[in-house]
């Protein structure tokens, strides 16, 4: 079973040289720590920055320089600041090659829910609806099941949607899955996790073809 850091590490393997990438709050943010050597990736933060760097030292902290998670950060050489409309212009125009974000539910059609639990929690969608409606390539990073042990990979999302038919890949603590043709396709198992365990934890339609390798 993978820890959060391992999920991030696995997703980092999907990055390609020259890509612009938007990382959501939580596990997705950790992906930045595992960018493979020789791969030049530029991080987009939707509050208005291309070229996000690591956290600052205590001495160099700047209240005017934060990421979309409101964390103080730094910039890389060649970075650029812009306003919110320009930020989502590049997102909607598909210039960001990969979006990684968390989810409360994902279903076999690629629908995603991550912004609202009716009557209980409404934090808002932030930039997530724009991101999932725009990116070609959307990877969800999340636990396979919720705290109650229920599957988060469903045949149909039960919570209010963030976007429809948009998630292309999911990396969980148990597996890597692709979504296509109305089903979850199991690609890889986490080390020490059996296909049976993944089956049991997946409520939606799961396709298992041939031997499923261990995670790369």
């Amino acid at each position, binding site marked *: 079973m993978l820890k959060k850091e391992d999920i991030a590490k696995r997703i980092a393997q999907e990055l390609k040289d020259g890509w612009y990438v938007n990382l959501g709050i939580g596990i997705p943010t950790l992906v930045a720590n595992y960018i493979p050597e020789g791969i030049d990736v530029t991080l987009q933060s939707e509050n208005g920055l291309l070229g996000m760097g690591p956290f600052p030292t205590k001495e160099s902290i700047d209240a005017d320089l934060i990421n979309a998670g409101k964390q*103080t950060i730094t910039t890389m050489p060649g970075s650029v600041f812009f306003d919110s*409309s320009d930020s989502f212009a590049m997102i909607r125009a598909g210039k960001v090659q990969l979006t990684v974000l968390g989810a409360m539910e994902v279903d076999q059609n690629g629908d995603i829910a991550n912004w609202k639990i009716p009557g209980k929690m409404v934090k*808002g*969608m932030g930039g*997530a*609806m*724009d991101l999932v409606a*725009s990116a070609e390539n959307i990877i969800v990073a999340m636990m396979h099941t919720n705290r109650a042990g229920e599957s988060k990979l469903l045949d149909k999302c039960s919570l209010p949607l963030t*976007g429809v038919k948009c998630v292309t890949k999911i990396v969980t603590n148990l597996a890597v899955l692709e979504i296509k043709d109305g089903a979850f396709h199991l690609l890889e198992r986490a080390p020490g996790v059996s296909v049976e365990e993944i089956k049991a934890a997946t409520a939606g339609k799961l396709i298992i073809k041939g031997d499923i390798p261990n995670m790369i």
Partner: protein
Amino acid sequence: MKKVVKNVDEAIEGIQSGMTLMLGGFGLCGIPEKCIEAISKRPEIKDLTCISNNAGVDDFGLGFLLKNHQIKKMISSYVGENEEFERQMLSGELEVELTPQGSLAEKCRAGGAGIPAFYTPAGYGTEVAEGKETREYNGKMYILEESLVSDFSIVKAWKGDTKGNLVFKATARNFNPVMAMAGKITIAEVEYLVEPGELDPNEIHTPGIFVHRIFEGKNYEKRIEQRTTSN
């Protein structure tokens, strides 16, 4: 025609109950903290509709106005850092219209660009699209969003000149330029107010034509929400 006002009280003159305000900032970064504080000291100003990406925190930014029950309605994209907000929202005291962040930014920009409506893919197939027209372009579905304008837009800039030209710093820019465009009256509070000609005309983010009142604020607190460091 003088745009420079002598202090924050003169800047907010004319803001009245029932008006629609836009307030720049993302989280607490780049918010017009001086004007917000001044409005909170005028509790007779009530029933405001506030358009702002976030709603401040309990004891800073728009949190002040929430605590005073000066806000009737919020139009925001993310409101997750404020307990009083959540309480008012769940109890029905506060009306909340959640809007995708990119749509919110574009709705402000459109309002400030004389464009009454535009198509965007954000929110298609979700609650956000309910009651809105949809249309297909090149095989993809879009929803029609209408623009936003305000009675007063209140923004915070790094530097400004007496003609109203503004320069923002780092990610404190965020919603400020698009909201500055969309105000019937736009108020800018700045850290440094300079004379015309001191800002390079190539480097101005908001042309002064969009700004009606400007003043220099003192002692900015610039509170940090997530103080993350590498050491």
